[in-house]
């Protein structure tokens, strides 16, 4: 008899999104998948609208990363209207984007992913949350987190025009220049961010890496997948969140592909499966071979960890120190002068995220002290319609691609988005399956701790499905249902936060 275990978040009472674990007759995990309902009709909503509205439409797809959608849309419009923004505009965009990264990665570490480690993977769910983190590390650190979010939201508002849904991105540039007094303020915020990022890495060191049990968990095979990895790199082959080429490395660390974002369709395909609304992108040249990892499977991931796996070292000095340390901890040899063989231990994504937090902070300081950043030349007025454009950025949770086509009047005729989390759908499924297989054996009793570790397998991806779809568990109460093949309830476990 096949049993089905369901991890079912009930943030909304009807329970959107769930993880299903199917057991075989022997009580071992046979298959897993996660399922989420999809928002409907986005492309239809957009067609016929003016292309220039897209930065202000797409930034409303989702409340989590409006800045990423705004930026990808703005870059797509540069292409649609065939216009190259002035250097200062590009730098302001990246400065804005760096502040966004600082807030997003900070929130994930302290409020979402970090509690698994700081409070502990076996702690009751009711304690694995930001309150548990504050209880463990102290009120002062809680204030630092809120302060960090606040000062960077201030920068996002200052540069982006609004606190939540930015409006400043325009085809050909940015709607406002930066005054010297504003620049000085941003510089100070960037310096504070660097201190905060270093503090966070130290906290990770003290609370996680120095805890033998947690370190063993990170280094264990439970969370290892040898897939391809994706990230955006600049002309030096180094990570950049705002602009560059898309690089894919194979599981051994060789560069498999490097291409302009505009050519994404030559490199990626998507498959759909009968039981899920989700699309599963894969590398076209390798092909879709089901939920398997390895070089012969076209499954790839696009995460903070894969961004570091593809980069020729970090572009900033302090981030480089921590980058070297992380790869040394995993015993990775260098495959080029500055790049290491990939880390496939997916829980290292949390560490990579903190290194990116430091990089974003350092990059913010570089840009805030760039003499050109206060240039008044922030816009080139578009004078033609090319009619097609792709814009791509690294969203915190993966490569984000917007692709638009328009008619000769600039009205949209085609819209395609590949959002950050979508890249990782297949990889997330792999991780859930492997974690479940390692942790649930021969009908062993399903405890909260085991299910927490299954949850950890997808939480490390920082999945944001409110744009890909809608909702997936972050820190949420869970209902676990074990069912037989006919769907009859065998057992129900409940875990409230």
């Amino acid at each position, binding site marked *: 008899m096949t049993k089905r275990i369901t991890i079912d978040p009930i943030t909304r009472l009807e329970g959107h999104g769930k993880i299903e674990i199917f057991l075989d007759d022997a009580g071992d995990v046979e298959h897993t998948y996660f399922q989420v309902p999809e928002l*409907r009709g986005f492309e239809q909503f957009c067609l016929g609208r003016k292309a220039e509205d897209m930065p202000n439409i797409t930034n409303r797809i989702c*409340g989590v990363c409006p800045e990423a959608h705004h930026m990808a849309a703005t870059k797509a419009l540069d292409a649609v209207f065939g216009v190259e923004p002035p250097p200062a505009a590009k730098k302001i965009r990246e400065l804005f984007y760096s502040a966004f990264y600082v807030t997003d990665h900070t929130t994930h570490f302290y409020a979402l992913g970090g509690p698994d480690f700081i409070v502990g993977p076996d702690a009751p769910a009711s304690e694995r949350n930001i309150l548990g983190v504050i209880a463990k590390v102290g009120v002062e650190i809680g204030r630092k987190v*809120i302060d960090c979010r606040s000062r960077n939201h201030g920068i996002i508002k200052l540069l982006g025009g609004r606190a939540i849904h930015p409006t400043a991105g325009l085809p050909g540039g940015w709607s406002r220049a930066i005054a010297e007094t504003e620049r000085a303020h941003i510089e100070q915020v960037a310096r504070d961010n660097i201190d905060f990022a270093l503090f966070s890495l130290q906290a990770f060191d003290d609370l996680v890496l120095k805890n033998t049990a947690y370190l063993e968990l990170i280094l264990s095979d439970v969370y290892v997948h040898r897939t391809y990895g994706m990230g955006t790199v600049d002309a030096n082959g180094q990570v950049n969140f705002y602009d560059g080429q898309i690089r894919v490395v194979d599981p051994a660390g060789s560069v498999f592909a490097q291409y302009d974002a505009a050519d994404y369709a030559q490199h990626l395909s998507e498959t759909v499966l009968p039981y899920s609304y989700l699309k599963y992108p894969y590398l076209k040249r390798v092909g879709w071979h089901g939920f398997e990892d390895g070089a012969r499977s076209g499954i790839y991931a696009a995460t903070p960890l894969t961004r570091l796996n593809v980069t020729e070292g970090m572009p900033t000095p302090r981030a480089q120190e921590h980058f070297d340390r992380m790869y040394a901890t995993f015993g990775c040899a260098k495959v080029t002068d500055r790049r290491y063989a990939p880390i496939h231990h997916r829980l290292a994504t949390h560490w990579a995220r903190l290194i990116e937090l430091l990089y974003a902070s350092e990059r913010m300081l570089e840009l805030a002290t760039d003499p050109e950043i206060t240039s008044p030349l922030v816009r080139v007025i578009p004078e033609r319609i090319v009619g097609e454009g792709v814009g791509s950025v690294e969203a915190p949770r993966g490569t984000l691609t917007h692709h638009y086509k328009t008619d000769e009047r600039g009205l949209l005729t085609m819209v395609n988005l590949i959002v950050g989390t979508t890249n990782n759908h297949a990889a997330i499924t792999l991780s859930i399956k492997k974690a479940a297989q390692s942790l649930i054996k021969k009908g062993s009793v399903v405890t909260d701790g085991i299910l927490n570790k299954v949850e950890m397998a997808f939480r490390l991806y920082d999945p944001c499905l409110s744009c890909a779809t809608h909702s997936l568990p*972050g820190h*949420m109460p869970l209902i676990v249902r074990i069912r037989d093949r006919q769907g009859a309830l065998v057992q129900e476990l409940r875990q409230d936060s």
Partner: protein
Amino acid sequence: MTRPRATRTRTTRTVVIGVGNPILSDDSVGIRIARQVQCCLGAAMPDAGDVEVTEMYAGGLRLMEALTGYDRAFLIDAVETGDGPPGTVHTFARQDLRALRNVSGVHDTSLGMALQVADRLSLPLPSDIRIWGVEIEDGMAFGEELTPAVAAAVPRVVGAVLAALQS
């Protein structure tokens, strides 16, 4: 986030926050109500005190940060409790927050959790937090229209919020 604002002594400072996605059909109902409340404010409502109306499509910490520093916070959101047909208006207290559609999100804590964080960090939370939730029919399709039953609830909630502002 605490924002600077003009200090008006002896007035109650209230923030009205419409929560939702403005382009996701019924999910936008809170935002639409907040916009109408904004339109009704002004000279006609001398007893409302110092009122700021804002919109959010984010729950948890972001929403908590948006209401710190005020004396009162009135939130309006879409809900799917199943307790009543679309258009049913529920009122909630702080402890009921889990039922709301947008105040908890995957990349954030729930608002209830975030408010506990604020308490723990001694952030200045409003002493009076009231929530209106409108039962919705379709919050999964992109669109700029409300379904009829939900649209019919809008003026009722606008009236209730305006009355509460003057209370």
